[in-house]
């Protein structure tokens, strides 16, 4: 039985499988955009392996964290660029 844990995506509570990454939590929450590029275009995870930095979001208050490399913990706060 897969365990689920609660995380927070742009202020919304979301349940995700334990052990999944923050990038996956975004997808489960229906958020395609992790960040806006320097000229304002939408970006999301691309390489899945911590190389491209397109998946960066603010995790637990720290900006520029690669969501594809961050394993979710209960209560993790994930904030993306398009978060109003």
């Amino acid at each position, binding site marked *: 039985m897969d365990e689920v844990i609660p995380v927070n995506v742009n202020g919304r509570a979301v349940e995700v499988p334990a052990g999944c990454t923050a990038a996956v939590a975004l997808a489960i929450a229906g958020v395609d955009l992790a960040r806006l590029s*320097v000229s304002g275009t939408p970006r999301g995870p691309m390489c899945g392996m911590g190389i491209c930095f397109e998946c960066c979001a603010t995790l637990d208050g*720290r*900006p*520029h964290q690669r969501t594809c490399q961050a394993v979710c913990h209960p209560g993790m706060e994930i904030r993306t660029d398009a978060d109003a």
Partner: protein
Amino acid sequence: MRTTSDIIIVGAGIVGAACARAFARDGLRVTIVDAAMIGGGATAAGMGHVAVMDDNPAQLALTHYSHQLWQELAAELPEDCEYDPCGTLWVAADDEELSAARQKLATLGNRGVRAELLDAQQLAEAEPQLRSGLAGGLLQGDDLIVYPPCVARYMIDQAREKGAELRLDSPVASLGGDHVLLADGTRLAAGHVVNAAGTAAVRLTPGLPICPRKGHLVITDRYRGFIRRELVELGYIKSAAGGATESVALNVQPRRTGQLLIGSSRQFGVESDKVEPAILGRMLRRAIEYLPGLARLSAVRSWTGFRAATDDNLPLIGPWPTVPGLYLATGHEGLGITTALATAELLADMLAGRKSKIPREPYLPERIHG
């Protein structure tokens, strides 16, 4: 491309580029030669800080004059030059440094340079990321920053619009006062030659009193608003002016991108351009001492560069007495960006037989022999 010009400039860094622009504006047929690209040497490695510095009267005169020229240039610089008048804030850690700040205020005031003394409280309000317990600071609100490689490119473009010719990827084998011999055998002739080759100037003109002074820099990810002005510790002056083999001093700059550029370090006698962890670490620890919040920010890149340093910390601008026709525009140490424009004007004045806006004697190369 022509092989005869009025003047050949060796070195397409910011100093050479400024000279090219000034000479071409004065109607001279200019050829610029560089071993590689435009602005790829110290021009690319430095911080792009344009600051009025008062370590000694000659330095103050040159930086003040040049700073005014930068302000005049501002309006026409393209976006990629990242012109930003963010100001410099000299940080005083204790009362002794605060007195030094007061002296600076007086000296700058005498020259009409805008500056404001801040007490501990005002400093904290101006830059909340600075640690508590500092004594105060001096704000030079008109100091500015640019992105030098793109400025050098712009100035060379300006020169070319007025007929200057550019030879890149053209290493120089030797030069004299009336010619430059390229490594590929091409001989370029001219009425005058300017050696603006930075740390490479010594190879081309033996006997120049120039030593390379290595510096390290680190740039962070984007943290807009972390600091508003370039923060420099008052001890920076000792580091730059002193002859210590190795020194670090706080110098952190907010780039327009939101990234923080962290310096500064100085080393004599090191040939390798490799990033050295020990001094890099010292430099970063110094920065963290003043800005504790820096510790957890993301550092994205580090690099090194070499400043062309002279014994008396003043550049060499003017004729090199032992080689008639040869002019020098080098030895700017950490003020190459700041004083590039004034350097160009002084040389252009000399070539045109005009009086300069500031006395040129302190920078004349003949002082070495005197």
